């Protein structure tokens, strides 16, 4: 809502309060003002001129030479280039010395050899938003009404000495979608009295009664509670008076003709949308408010054919729909230049009905925006009378006697109880009864207090947002001033703040991963359908969960795995020449086995990482080292070690989709339920690498649920070893396919208590041991906690280990 400061001054004395001060006051009071643009964009020295004569320029086809009376006593000669200039017109004339927006100074000039003493201006040259003007006025100069006074300052004529308050209204304050509503608000803020417009009681009565011409019925009683209409005869369709047009333009509404402009003017003033029908086009002299019939069609004022649906509310005559109630009129009953009699409508339509219809048809209008938020039922009749009296005055029409109306129900006034304790208890203030009474009276809310100190407040119908005591508490608080509310600390028992276990683990995980050199990414939770099919095992056979109305195909379904997001992030980085990447994300994936959701999907917390390029970039003293599988695995090992889970976790060769079949491990965890796969680590499948333009890329993705369950912060201290260890290194030759992990597992199992640790320190393949063989070198450390081991004990244990390796893997000791 754009509010003209000058127009607002009609209803309340604003002297001593500038537009900017008023904006600040309103913003602090809860009606946010976005900005306060001046309507004068820098115009001075422009007056109304009369074009006495217009001749063609002798040397230029497109120029005219005009003689202008600008009220100075002597005629001016002005050269003008506009096509729409003609003799006997009133136009804005920038005199020599005038200033126009954009720093333009008007000087005496010669145009193609003809002297020009000023300039005739277009609306745009005067800094007016000419999109609201008729097309011919946009292209040419601004033509003023013939009765405009010659010599008058254009700033007065067009009411440009004004500022606009641009209201950014919250949905509850639709009362401020009207000048009167804003005036009430300003009156409450300033404590100044209101001057409300009085619709004229005598509306130029005629012999006719409205009922002679039109009758009104409401069939859709749920959707319309009150419908009123007046009949106005013998109107002359013409331009509205300049002051009405000025105010419409100030509010951002296009002037059309006197009838339409007056209905819009009253809508702005009262917040009540009105509609005018051409009475001659209403069949049967009756208006019915009803729901649309199956298959019914209406061509709306914008010449669009609308297929109506049965829950849409229409205004109909005896035969057909003539308007979409509260949304837009029908072309079949439109007021045109031939119109002589009109039916003027003012009604209360159900907000939800209007909202649904306007959404369904994609038709939003100033009217629907107001109906949606429920218009004030108390202003339906007064707005009708106000418009009728303006039409009578400016449209030369005769208003017939009485109103045709149908009313389903008239709402009872809302009464809300409030106590002083409630106000002070909620706000932490120490307001007195008198202070509250003063605030309520500034709001013009009637209030009575009973013996127990309970206020009964009667809420005016214009404030439909106030239904409960807390709504009144807010009114008191905002008018008292939020700044006046004290600053206190919560009373009552103290509480201990803490992270839950899973939150603490998630933070620890984040810290280990970033400590390992990974950069944390945050990716979108939505992706394309295609992306959800890249890693079948990670997506767990989930059906893609699709958004009903996605913004794009790329972001149309919820992600079922994290890795596709990291691949996208990696691909993006490569285009930015960031080639060495170590990325990770901790986030949710969304799984469901339902085609159409009937319950919420499983949101599974996960962590994923991606490594590509070099582990370290080359420096002056070292060469670059590309990342490999064991970088990714090493990070995971560190994670599980840090979370106290290393003993539960194992890695087995696996071939999940999207991964390199020979370079991928399933990550398993031992639980009470058995061994569970919680994720995968491996190289990205070369085909995927190619699709994303990635070099060799290593990735991992793991479920966090079991990590949250099994992470163990318990530290069991062991006394430091007091007896020396004995270290034995061995190298065994085994089949190339033998898993190193299986060797170490077998060693641990066969060596027993004395083995302290076993470490692979070399793996060799080469011709010397045969193409299908490999040599694995292991360091075994033996130690007894309570005494020094003897050589014999170690030799015996070691022999057992070697025998086991030979038996299980055909391992030969390499000499």
């Amino acid at each position, binding site marked *: 809502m754009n509010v003209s400061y000058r127009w607002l001054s009609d209803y309340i004395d604003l002297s001593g309060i500038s537009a900017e001060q008023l904006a600040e006051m309103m913003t*602090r009071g*809860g009606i946010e003002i976005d900005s306060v643009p001046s309507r004068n964009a820098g115009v001075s020295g422009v007056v109304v001129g009369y074009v006495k004569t217009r001749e063609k320029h002798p040397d230029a086809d497109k120029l005219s030479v005009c003689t202008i009376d600008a009220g100075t006593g002597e005629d001016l000669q002005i050269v003008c280039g506009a096509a729409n200039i003609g003799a006997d017109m009133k136009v804005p004339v920038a005199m020599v010395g005038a200033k126009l927006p954009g720093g333009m100074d008007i000087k005496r000039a010669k145009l193609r050899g003809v002297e020009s003493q000023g300039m005739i201006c277009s609306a745009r040259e005067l800094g007016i938003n000419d999109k609201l003007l008729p097309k011919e006025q946009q292209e040419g100069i601004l033509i003023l009404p013939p009765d405009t006074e010659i010599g008058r300052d254009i700033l007065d004529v067009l009411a440009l000495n004004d500022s606009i308050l641009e209201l950014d209204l919250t*949905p509850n*304050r*639709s009362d401020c979608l009207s000048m009167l509503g804003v005036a009430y608000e300003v009156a409450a803020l300033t404590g100044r009295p209101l001057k409300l417009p009085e619709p004229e009681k005598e509306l130029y009565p005629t012999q006719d009664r409205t009922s002679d011409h039109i009758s009104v019925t409401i069939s859709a009683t749920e959707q319309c509670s009150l419908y009123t209409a007046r009949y106005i005869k013998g109107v002359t369709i013409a331009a509205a008076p300049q002051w009405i047009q000025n105010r419409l333009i100030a509010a951002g509404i296009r002037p059309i003709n006197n009838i339409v402009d007056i209905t819009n003017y009253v809508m702005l003033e009262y917040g009540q949308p009105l509609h005018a029908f051409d009475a001659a086009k209403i069949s049967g002299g009756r208006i019915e408010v009803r729901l649309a019939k199956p298959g019914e069609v209406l061509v709306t004022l914008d010449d669009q054919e609308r297929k109506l649906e049965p829950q849409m509310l229409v205004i109909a005559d005896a035969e057909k729909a003539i308007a979409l109630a509260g949304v837009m009129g029908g072309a079949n009953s439109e007021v045109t230049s031939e119109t002589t009699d009109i039916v003027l409508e003012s009604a209360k339509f159900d*907000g939800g009905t209007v*909202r649904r219809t306007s959404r369904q048809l994609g038709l939003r209008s100033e009217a629907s925006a107001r109906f949606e*938020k429920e218009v004030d039922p108390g202003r339906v009749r007064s707005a009708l009378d106000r418009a009728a009296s303006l039409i009578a005055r400016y449209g030369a029409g005769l208003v017939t006697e009485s109103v045709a109306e149908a009313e389903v129900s008239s709402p009872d006034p809302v009464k809300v109880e409030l106590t002083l304790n409630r106000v002070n208890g*909620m*706000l*932490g203030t120490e307001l007195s009864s008198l202070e509250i009474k003063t605030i309520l009276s500034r709001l013009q809310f009637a209030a009575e207090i009973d013996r127990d100190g309970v206020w009964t407040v009667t809420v005016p119908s214009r404030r439909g947002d106030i239904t409960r005591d*807390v709504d009144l*508490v*807010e009114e008191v*608080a*905002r008018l008292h001033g*939020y*700044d006046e*509310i004290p*600053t*206190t*600390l*919560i*009373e*009552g028992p103290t*509480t*201990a*703040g803490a*992270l*839950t276990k899973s939150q603490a683990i998630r933070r620890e995980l984040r810290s280990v991963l970033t400590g390992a*050199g990974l*950069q*944390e*990414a*945050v990716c*979108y*939770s939505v992706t394309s359908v295609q992306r959800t099919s890249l890693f079948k095992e990670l997506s767990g056979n989930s059906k893609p*969960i*699709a*958004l*009903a*109305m*996605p*913004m794009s195909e790329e*972001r149309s379904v919820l992600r079922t795995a994290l890795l596709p997001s990291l691949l996208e992030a990696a691909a*993006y*980085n490569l285009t*930015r020449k*960031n080639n060495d990447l*170590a990325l990770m994300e901790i986030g949710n994936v*969304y799984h469901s086995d339902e085609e159409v*959701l*009937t319950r*919420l999907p499983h*949101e599974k917390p996960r962590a994923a990482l991606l490594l590509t390029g070099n*582990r370290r970039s080359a*420096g*002056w*003293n*070292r060469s670059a080292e590309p990342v490999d599988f064991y970088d990714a695995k090493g990070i995971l090992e560190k994670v599980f070690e840090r979370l106290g889970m290393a003993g539960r976790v194992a890695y087995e060769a696996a071939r999940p989709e999207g991964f390199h079949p020979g370079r991928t491990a399933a990550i398993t965890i031992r639980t009470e339920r058995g061994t569970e796969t919680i994720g995968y680590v491996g190289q990205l499948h070369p085909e995927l690498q190619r699709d994303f333009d990635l070099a060799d890329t290593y990735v991992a993705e793991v479920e966090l649920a079991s990590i949250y369950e099994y992470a163990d912060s318990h530290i069991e201290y062991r006394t430091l070893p007091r007896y020396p260890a004995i270290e034995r290194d061995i190298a065994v030759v085994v089949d190339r396919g033998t898993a190193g992990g299986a060797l170490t597992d077998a060693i641990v199992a066969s060596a027993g208590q004395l083995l302290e640790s076993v470490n692979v320190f070399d793996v060799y393949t080469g011709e010397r041991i045969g193409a299908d063989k490999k040599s694995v070198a292991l360091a075994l450390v033996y130690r007894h906690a309570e005494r020094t081991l003897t050589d014999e004990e170690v030799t015996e244990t070691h022999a057992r280990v070697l025998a086991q390796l030979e038996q299980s893997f055909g391992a030969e000791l390499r000499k």
Partner: protein
Amino acid sequence: MKERLEALRKEALEQLQGVADAAALNDLRVQYLGKKGQLTEILRGMGGLSAEERPIIGQVGNDVRAAIEAVIGEKQEGFDRAATAHRLQAETIDVTLPGKSVNSGSVHPLNKVAQEIEDIFIGMGYTIAEGPEVETDFFNFEALNLPKNHPARDMQDSFYITDEILLRTHTSPVQIRTMKAMNGKTPVKVICPGKVYRRDDDDATHSFMFHQIEGLVIGPNIRMSDLKGTLLQFVQEMYGPQMQIRLRPSFFPFTEPSAEVDVTCAQCGGSGCRMCKHTGWIEILGCGMVHPKVLEHGGYDPKEVTGFAFGMGVERIALLKYDIDDIRHFYANDTKFLSQFAKL
């Protein structure tokens, strides 16, 4: 014999005077003091001396040995020092060349800011509650006093999956879930961080996915003044003790009274600058007293308890904190962006 010893001393000391390096010094040591050296040679003749002479000559022999050893020691020390100095000289490196870099990771700025906010509230006695990102219409809207077709739903254009299930448009449904889980008990004191989604066209200041942190306190006597006190404490811990807050009346369906909260512009300290559009204030969050209908939906009697709630956008706080020019940077995950946050 004594003369011979004295002569040896003189000769040895003269020889040592001119010695040039450690090797020559060692040769001289062997020559004079070694097992087959000249001193030993002379002293071997002591067998022929009388009992009276022997201690005297022995003493002289010891003196000579000590004198020679002392000079050798001195010389040796000098040569060692020179050798060390020479080695150190040879080992000199260019300390201005860059070191071997250690890869450093970085926490995403949004999580960095969120953790900071969480920690402040944990310090104030709050716990952290979380809820699903895919929500029911009931929890996301209806229970928060936003019935179907309520005009206020326009404030939040939503991504629906079915008519009843959608991506949550705010973290407020966690309020309802928390209240229900508390089963009527007080005090409730939680913050709820998380991702939220709105149908907004992405631009420099809007993202269809973003992060919120919501706060909720419910108790028998919670006042709006407590809300002000809580937010002031938060803002001062987050931005510094010089910061002030300002509440402006506003509207949220789930709070009444409602307010928007401005904080002193950190850029200019309140004197007005480009960042705060010359107002001295920056809007950072919305808040209010929990609406009675919301309390009822959560299983509380609004006559018995009151509460306050507040919510802030993590992106907005991070944009302001680091003066970042475009919200989309948070989701592009350009490592040149991410690496800038690898600090305390």
